[in-house]
């Protein structure tokens, strides 16, 4: 009799494994429904249910065993080809999966099987099982053999159950060693031979076509038992397991598969997430300590060895941080696994046909973010199927294929992850949206009349909005897209919707890779330091003393930013901080405005001082402070002091910048801003040596910097400059673009101009490396619609356009950087 702890362990392993298997079942069933003849899938499903049943018997879980048993009976008939999969059967089997899941959850939380009543499911399964067989040429024969099959089943169960026992005990004993693999495999091979022999012995009456089938699955069962473990370890959610199983199936395919799994097993170990969290915390602290050391070492200029050591520490810490961060990354596919089932369920309940396609399921995201986007994504998918895709009849009438298509795509872009969910449904009719919003009193009739299409579409994100006349059990309760939006924004993401009537809707969610360590702007207000996450930062504006930038309407301060009114929020007032002595902001003094994005709205935060940007480690606040919505957390600064991290959304709400939906002015501005962003581009306008004007897409610009000419150094013929603890190569844009002759001339000219003391550099960040593009002068940031003309196209220039009435070239940053590398190699 095993001790209590061993049972616990056994139970835990059983739970973990079963959950993983069940997740896979959901997918398999849906796949099977579309293609009922896929025997490998059917066999894999059968094995899963069978494993659960077998282990249940071993652990004394009678109820679960009973439920699993009826399912197994039905499945075994399906597997033997006596029945074909149809919607009714799939539904019943999915209900079975739900029941099993419910019992498992009960076991997990309370330790017993609970007192749920699953007799309805069982009856349904039995009923389906007793249904006349499909294409039964030998009805009487099957009737006879059915009693035989049950006894047979029981026998098979016995052998398999003991086999499962072996699997469990063996894997328990040596899960993480390589020996386990070599130990287990031969043992199982033997066992499998034994079992398959037995089953064939016991099957003399069965038709010949059934015989190979019945032995084959048992065989694959045993070969699979080994690979099952490694996949648990790598994915934790078992989706690669599914692929492995699908790949296998026949005896011939099983051979190379075993090998692949062997390497998987030896390369992967199972690690508790808590341990990773702890490591992450420790690395976070190391980052803080590193920051402190760096601060100290840069102050001690006469200690070169300390400086060197500090630089090394810096590099190692950065790498370690990246490494640990990677361990927490999970492919988004783990989350997506459950979507086919959801899509199927929703589609069935509203009598639609929808197919789901996925791309980029290997895109990785931090575990915490995966958790955070789970609900929003689920909701979006339900919505797409329920509201987006039309009924089959409507689709056919519109000349579309009967089956709707839901397409999910995930990919990395600029340090963020983009998730797109598109459907080919009817699209969102802005007129309908406006009418509904007006009916629900969310906007007034005049507002509706004035609204642009894009603006109207974005109304779906308003709290309380719903288009459905009837509340279905799927969606339409009016709680929905606004929750999606808030949840995504809470983790620093954005949601955007694009739609075309009759063609479909695409929802684009942009989220950061990780939450634990983020770049932030450090500011001071009222003598306290605060950190502002860089994601919500748009730009910094400094008003010099005496400039009359700030205007007031009825006491509300505003600033004219490129013609738009920007509401201002004084951080020290909002936080009820003491004014900074006599230096507190009074009219006429200089001011620093941090332009932030809170939801759709921009606002300016007036602070006393802007310090620097820094990578900060986000630490949660204690529950005593959870109610203070203006803070997202706290962090420890380089000097060891604690600084609070501002929650930009919370701050905007507190300051009433993000106001009620009736605030027309806000809405107009937001619409303008969003309209601009669609067909216009933000461009950085620079002047090069020799007076050429050049624009660089602002999206490619990491930062703008100024370096003293004396700070330029040379490494291997390349100008470099020390920048944020890295050596950043500098590329003189004019030089790269120039032909040979003018290049020489320019060098001479540059020598003649030593009087320019500061050089201006546009920092471009590529694959974690910074590259400085040296320009003569940064002129402005403009928003323009770029209409390229091909005149003047050459290496490094994408084309010519007219900006501010002057001919300007659009720089091809990538080409310039590549070319510079080539030039360097040639020199």
């Amino acid at each position, binding site marked *: 009799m095993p001790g209590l702890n061993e049972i616990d362990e056994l139970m835990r392993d059983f739970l973990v494994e079963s959950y993983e298997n069940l997740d896979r079942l959901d997918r398999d069933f849906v796949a099977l429904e579309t293609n009922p003849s896929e025997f490998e899938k059917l066999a894999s499903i059968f094995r899963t249910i069978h494993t659960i049943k077998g282990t249940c018997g071993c652990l004394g879980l009678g109820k679960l065993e009973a439920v699993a048993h009826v399912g197994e009976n039905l499945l075994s008939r399906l597997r033997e080809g006596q029945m074909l999969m149809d919607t009714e059967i799939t539904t019943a089997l999915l209900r079975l999966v739900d029941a099993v899941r419910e019992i498992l959850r009960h076991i997990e939380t309370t330790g017993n099987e609970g007192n749920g009543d699953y007799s309805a499911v069982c009856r349904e399964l039995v009923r389906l099982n007793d249904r006349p067989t499909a294409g039964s040429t030998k009805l009487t024969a099957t009737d006879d053999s059915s009693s035989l099959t049950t006894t047979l089943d029981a026998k098979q169960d016995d052998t398999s159950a003991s086999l499962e026992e072996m699997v469990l005990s063996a894997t328990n004993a040596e899960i993480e060693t390589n020996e386990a693999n070599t130990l287990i495999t031969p043992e199982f091979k033997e066992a499998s031979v034994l079992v398959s022999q037995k089953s064939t012995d016991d099957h003399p009456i069965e038709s010949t076509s059934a015989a190979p089938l019945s032995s084959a699955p048992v065989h694959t069962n045993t070969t699979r038992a080994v690979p099952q473990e490694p996949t648990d370890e790598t994915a934790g959610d078992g989706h690669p397991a599914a692929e492995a199983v699908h790949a296998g199936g026949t005896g011939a395919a099983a051979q190379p598969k075993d090998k692949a799994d062997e390497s998987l097993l030896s390369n992967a170990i199972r690690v508790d997430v808590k341990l990773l969290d702890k490591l992450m915390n420790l690395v*976070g*602290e190391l980052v*803080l*300590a590193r920051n402190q050391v760096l601060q100290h070492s840069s102050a001690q200029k006469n200690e070169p060895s300390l400086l060197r050591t500090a630089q090394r520490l810096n590099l190692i810490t950065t790498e370690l941080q990246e490494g640990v961060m990677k361990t927490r990354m999970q492919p988004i596919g783990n989350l997506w696994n459950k979507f086919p089932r959801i899509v199927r369920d929703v589609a069935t309940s509203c009598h639609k046909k929808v197919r789901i396609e996925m791309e980029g399921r290997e895109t990785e995201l931090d575990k915490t973010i995966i958790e955070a986007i789970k609900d929003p994504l689920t909701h979006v998918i339900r919505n797409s199927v329920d509201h987006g895709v039309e009924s089959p009849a409507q689709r056919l009438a519109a000349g579309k294929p009967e089956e709707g298509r839901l397409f999910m795509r995930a990919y990395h872009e600029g340090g963020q992850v983009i998730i797109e969910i598109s459907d080919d449904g009817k699209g969102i009719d802005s007129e309908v949206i406006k009418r509904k919003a007006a009916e629900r009193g969310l906007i007034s009739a005049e507002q509706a009349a004035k609204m642009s299409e894009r603006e109207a579409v974005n109304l779906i994100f308003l709290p309380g909005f719903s288009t459905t006349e009837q509340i279905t059990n799927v969606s339409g309760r009016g709680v929905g897209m606004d929750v999606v939006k808030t949840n995504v924004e809470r983790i620093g993401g954005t949601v955007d919707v694009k739609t075309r009537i009759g063609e479909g809707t695409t929802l684009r969610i942009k989220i950061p890779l990780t939450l634990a360590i983020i770049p932030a702007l450090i500011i001071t207000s009222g003598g*306290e330091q605060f950190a502002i996450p860089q994601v919500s930062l748009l730009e910094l504006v400094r008003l010099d003393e005496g400039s009359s930038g700030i205007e007031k309407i009825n006491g509300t301060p505003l600033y004219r930013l490129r013609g738009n009114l920007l509401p201002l929020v004084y951080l020290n007032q909002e*936080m*009820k*901080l003491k004014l900074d002595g006599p230096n507190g902001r009074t009219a006429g003094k200089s001011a620093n405005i941090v332009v932030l994005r809170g939801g759709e709205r921009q606002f300016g935060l007036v602070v006393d001082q802007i310090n620097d940007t820094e990578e900060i480690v986000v*630490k949660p*606040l*204690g*529950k*005593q*402070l*959870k*109610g*203070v*919505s*203006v*803070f997202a957390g*706290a*962090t*420890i600064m380089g000097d*060891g*002091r*604690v*600084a*609070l991290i501002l929650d930009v959304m*919370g701050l905007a709400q*507190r300051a009433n910048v993000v106001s009620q939906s009736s605030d027309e002015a806000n809405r107009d501005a937001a619409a303008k801003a969003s309209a601009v962003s669609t067909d216009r581009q933000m461009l950085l306008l620079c002047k090069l040596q020799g007076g050429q004007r050049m624009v660089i897409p602002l999206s490619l610009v990491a930062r703008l910097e100024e370096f003293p000419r004396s700070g330029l150094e040379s490494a291997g013929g390349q100008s470099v400059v020390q920048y944020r603890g890295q050596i950043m190569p500098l590329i003189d844009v004019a030089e790269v673009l120039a032909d040979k002759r003018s290049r020489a001339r320019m060098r001479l000219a540059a020598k003649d101009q030593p009087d320019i003391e500061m050089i201006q550099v546009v920092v471009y960040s590529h694959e974690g490396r910074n590259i400085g593009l040296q320009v003569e002068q940064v002129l402005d940031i403009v928003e323009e619609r770029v209409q390229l003309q091909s005149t003047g196209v050459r290496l490094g220039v994408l084309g010519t356009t007219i900006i501010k009435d002057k001919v300007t070239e659009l720089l091809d940053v990538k080409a310039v950087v590549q070319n510079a590398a080539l030039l360097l190699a040639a020199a």
Partner: protein
Amino acid sequence: MNDTKQYCSFFVDDLFFGVEVREVQEVIRYLEMTQVPLAAAEIGGLINLRGQIVTAVDLRRRLKLPDRKPGQFPMNVVVRTDDAAVSLLVDEIGDVLQVDKESFESPPETLNGVARELIAGVYKLKGRLLLVLDTQKAVNVIAAAA
């Protein structure tokens, strides 16, 4: 059965408090604090405890006692709570006392106000009373509505 318990004692104003030793993570001198604007008045601030950010609850404020005089710095009694460590700001740290369970008594009925809520009982020591602080309740500060 053990019939003695160990208490870490400290002073808040003229009150003599004790927290059972196993609840105390550590006791440290004054640490610089970061104020949290808009938080409840009882929140003393945030301290950096070797890389951990710990919320400090000012026991004087919590017990509705007058504030410390300027220049008088509080000490930290860091206690473990359900979700995280919390520092209790006290005036002065006393000894670790071994007390007899026999001398325990429930708080007197006549005690009222916040004290009634936060004092779990009283040990009758020689010459003075040791008030047992209910730490879970003491750190349960509801943030002021933001």
